């Protein structure tokens, strides 16, 4: 046996991600549209949050309707630490991530004793509390007026100001987040997480400390959201509490479910779909219905979520994978299963 046979279980090839990102990073060679790169950059921010959220929701089966809070904690940590206290943005990102991790731990310990709807409500409540704090702690955060003048991020003297440069920055983060998360999924830890979704009682019985695992992955996903929020703050240079309302958390979850909640790539697909549809809506809805307010998005995405859950509960990416595997030849192991099934079928029934 060698590492080759491990490939029968997990496709841990680095080739796929590299091809994807090389192609993506070539986009600036063929286009110089700032609009395009601002869109792609937005997708990157959301994708980074969703990668963490999909490990929590898709693999460990735990819902969170409060991830905008961590996104916001990262953003405000960076804003305050760099804007008010003049810290280096990279240091601020790390401090923000640490704050988010600690908050996730403190919130997670009581929250993950809950399941299903109760967990969803508790995390939703947490998100609303944090949003209120952003709004009311106005001496620190600037309150509803927002926080102005967040300095840009720089590396070795290079300032990330243009959309194109920021596009590279965020997607490099996404690249490493994808690799890191995929490595986790394809390991003891990933199996531990997935066993929770598979059967909590059996996971417990093989020695998986459920609470510990739920907390670890909640903290990890909070860190991803926090880093994404920090990078967002430095990108837009102005943030206000409305970026981190409960709706944002719900949109994150919609992206994860649309993309495919049991698939890391689903995070990118879901984020891209969301941003694309959102742009289309923003463009066309006012043209068709001039009197509509700003809340049509939640209606549209709410309906989309319901439709996705009814017609495509696994999301886009797994659906796509199924389509591809239809074209591939069936593996010989399938034959083994078939023969076992038919052997059992002829084995008779004990009733």
């Amino acid at each position: 046996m060698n590492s080759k046979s491990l490939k029968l279980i997990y496709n841990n090839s680095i080739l796929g991600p590299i091809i994807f990102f090389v192609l993506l990073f070539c986009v600036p060679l063929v286009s110089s549209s700032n609009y395009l790169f601002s869109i792609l950059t937005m997708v990157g921010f959301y994708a980074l949050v969703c990668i963490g959220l999909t490990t929590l929701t898709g693999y460990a089966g735990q819902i969170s309707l409060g991830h905008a809070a961590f996104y916001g904690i990262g953003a405000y940590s960076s804003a305050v630490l760099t804007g008010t206290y003049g810290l280096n943005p990279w240091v601020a990102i790390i401090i923000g991530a640490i704050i988010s991790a600690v908050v996730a731990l403190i919130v997670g310990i009581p929250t993950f004793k809950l399941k299903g709807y109760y967990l969803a409500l508790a995390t939703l409540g947490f998100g609303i509390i944090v949003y209120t704090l952003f709004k009311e702690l106005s001496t620190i955060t600037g309150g509803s007026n927002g926080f102005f003048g967040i300095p840009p991020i720089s590396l070795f003297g290079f300032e990330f100001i243009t959309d194109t440069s920021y596009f590279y920055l965020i997607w490099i983060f996404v690249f490493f987040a994808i690799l890191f998360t995929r490595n986790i999924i394809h390991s003891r830890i990933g199996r531990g997480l997935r066993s929770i979704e598979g059967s909590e009682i059996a996971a417990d019985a093989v020695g998986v400390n459920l609470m510990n695992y739920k907390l670890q992955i909640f903290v990890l996903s909070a860190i991803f959201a926090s880093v994404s929020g920090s990078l967002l703050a430095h990108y837009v240079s102005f943030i206000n509490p409305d970026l981190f309302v409960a709706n944002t958390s719900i949109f994150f979850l919609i992206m994860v479910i649309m993309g495919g909640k049991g698939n890391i790539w689903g995070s990118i697909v879901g984020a891209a779909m969301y941003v694309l549809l959102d742009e289309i809506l923003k463009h066309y809805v006012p043209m068709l219905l001039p009197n509509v307010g700003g809340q049509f998005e939640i209606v549209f995405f709410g309906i989309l979520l319901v439709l996705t859950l009814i017609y495509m509960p696994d999301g886009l990416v797994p659906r796509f994978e199924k389509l591809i595997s239809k074209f591939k030849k069936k593996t010989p192991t399938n034959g083994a299963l078939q023969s076992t099934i038919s052997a059992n079928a002829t084995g008779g029934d004990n009733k």
Partner: protein
Amino acid sequence: MSNKRPILSVENLTKVFGGVVAVDNVSFTVDEGEIFAVIGPNGAGKSTLFNMITGVLPSSSGNIYFQEKRLNRKKPYQIAQMGITRTFQNLEVFDNMSVIENVMTGAHITMKTNILTAGLRLPSVKKEEIKTMERAIEALEAVGISDLAYEMADRLPYGSQRLLEIARAAISNPKLILLDEPMAGLNSEESRQLVEVILKMREKGMTFLFVEHDMETVMSISDSIVVIDNGVKIGEGTPEEIYQNPQVVAAYLGDEEEEGVEAYA
């Protein structure tokens, strides 16, 4: 039989649900290397007893000792870490994983990878993964379903899923495996296969405690049997002794056919 060492001792174990005494002052001792069965009619308290030993339910009073360590108040995952694993009556395979991943998950407590080393995929992680995979294949070979290793677990026939649960329970080299009605829902061919697997593993030194309805299996493979009825222990001994115990015959064996039908209902 002089080197009998107790591995699990249940002492005066009692469980009260509201006003109902489900398990009443039950005591028994399982010795290392034996196949120990707990039998009794439906509603006798077998499952409650089983759930107390595995930590799913807290006991009302009494003690459970595993190799002189007290199990009461321990959580299921802690009990697993001490060396007791189990299978489930109503199959609990991880249906979101392949067969081999299920078994590898069973090896969880024997592995060291943490979230950080896993994320960075350190060389030690890869080494451990390969080692675990090889052990998983061995465990699947031991129960005879290694040809299904790369199938999704939920696509397996019922009997194979039960064998999978045994492989998952055995891969961590536990000292004791608890089987919750292992024969339930199996056809005769599958039952025979399962008995074979259990006997083979016992030869290698594994200890089994099982709760079962299927009298034929219990009598043919058990070394010791405890019979409970209405939560009370009414008999204990070898299969021969159980056959000759009038109290047991009255409470249970007399209804064998009827019980046999109910077990699959």
